[in-house]
């Protein structure tokens, strides 16, 4: 599904992401953890090919994401890697319609998506007038509108209250169960990650310092929080 091979992202003299390699299998729920500035967001953007890389590559379904061939696989990927990747002056409905047209898909009607992401009642409200939780749900809805095989989410639980966090977690679990969507997300919220992950990647100063499956974490008798405290 996704192969990341010795990926390095350099800004100026600094390596923001340094020789990171990992592989993600279909259906996995991979959580990338790390402190602020560890390079999580940059890694996610580089994986999608939205960030230029110094060395290495990211390959999704056989397509190198740093070559023009990425256009071939983009219709199969959903990403919420920018906090404001919608048009503020357009309504939730219009943002979804717009994205649906770019993908050229009609697998779901916009109304169906609005219902699924609990945005139906606020569909005519401009995106900049939505609450933080609603904006997060809109970002997820936009990322999911093409029913992607791979979902890349940057901090989906940030600035979201408990109810919305639970809603997003339930939704992600549903998407995985019903459509077999592979999810790669970054987060700071360890309890939420605990409830969702099937694999943990821990980044420290741009380097991958731990890569463990849920079973491995369980067998070691630790929790995600223990792992985070130990490595991050």
């Amino acid at each position, binding site marked *: 599904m996704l192969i990341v091979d010795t990926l390095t992202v350099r800004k100026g003299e600094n390596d923001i992401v340094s020789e990171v390699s990992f592989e993600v299998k279909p259906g996995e729920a991979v959580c990338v953890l790390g402190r602020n500035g560890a390079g999580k967001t940059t890694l996610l953007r580089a994986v*999608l090919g939205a960030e230029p890389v110094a060395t290495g590559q990211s390959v999704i379904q056989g397509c190198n994401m740093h070559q023009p061939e990425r256009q071939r696989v983009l219709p199969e990927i959903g990403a919420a890697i920018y906090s404001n990747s919608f048009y503020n002056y*357009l309504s939730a409905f219009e943002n979804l319609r*717009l994205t649906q047209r770019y993908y050229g898909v009609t697998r779901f009607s916009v109304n169906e998506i609005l219902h699924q992401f609990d945005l139906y009642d606020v569909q005519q409200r401009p995106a900049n007038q939505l609450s933080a939780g609603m904006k997060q749900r809109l970002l997820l809805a936009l990322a999911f509108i093409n029913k992607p095989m791979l979902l890349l989410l940057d901090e989906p639980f940030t600035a979201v209250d408990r109810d919305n966090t639970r809603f997003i977690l339930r939704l992600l679990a549903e998407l995985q169960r019903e459509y077999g969507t592979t999810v790669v997300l970054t987060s700071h919220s360890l309890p939420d990650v605990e409830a969702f992950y099937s694999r943990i990647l821990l980044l420290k100063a741009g380097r991958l310092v731990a890569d463990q499956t849920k079973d491995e974490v369980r067998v070691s008798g630790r929790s995600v929080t223990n792992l985070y405290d130990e490595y991050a």
Partner: protein
Amino acid sequence: MLPVLQNEWLKLHRHLHLLWAGALAFVVSGFMIQRFCETALRVYTFWAETHPERTFAFFFYDQVNLTLSFLQFLLACLATVAVFDTETAESLIQLTRLLPVSGLKVMVAKLLYSMSFLLMSSSFMAALLVLLQQPFLSYMNAQERLGIVELGWHYGLRALLMLPVSLLAALITTCFFGKPLAVLVLSMLATLALMAVPALPYSHLFWFSPVNAAPFDLIDMLVSIGWTVVLSRLLYKQYTA
């Protein structure tokens, strides 16, 4: 290409009120008041001379002509802003990184809409000019009528010249600043430069040309720029509030 055009229209339709509100506000603003005050002064001054009916006709024609010029220019600027304000450089980059859409196609769609708006506004103004100048033709001699015809051509030519310059100005400012006001101001200045220069060769064809001296036009332009900037700023603030 069709979905991209549809999407650009979706983004654009929210800005159309800015276009029409700007044009209307401009017409009823101080620019018009200032123009009419100036007309009254000029008519009064020349009434004492021997050609009152010709004087009045030409001054009225002068008002129509210049008002339409500025309106054309304002519509052109607002049209350009309406099209390019739908996207900042950042949002365009994000869009093309996240979604399977070509940035080139999006820009082509924007250019198509922008050109349509500019051509529509120019055609509208040219048609109005033809209509409004009819009552005054009988007061003119052959040379002056020729001047009117040439002025008609000048309108068309200016519309064509406005197109690339406004678009270029809008593109440059959008890329570097992404700010609608910067786009508006730069587009205005570029278009204004185009407006001011080509009009001069025709002035010798009119018997009242000495009255139409540069200082008057300069005052007109400065007042117009001031009002347009203030109104645009107000509209933009209200729009983004």
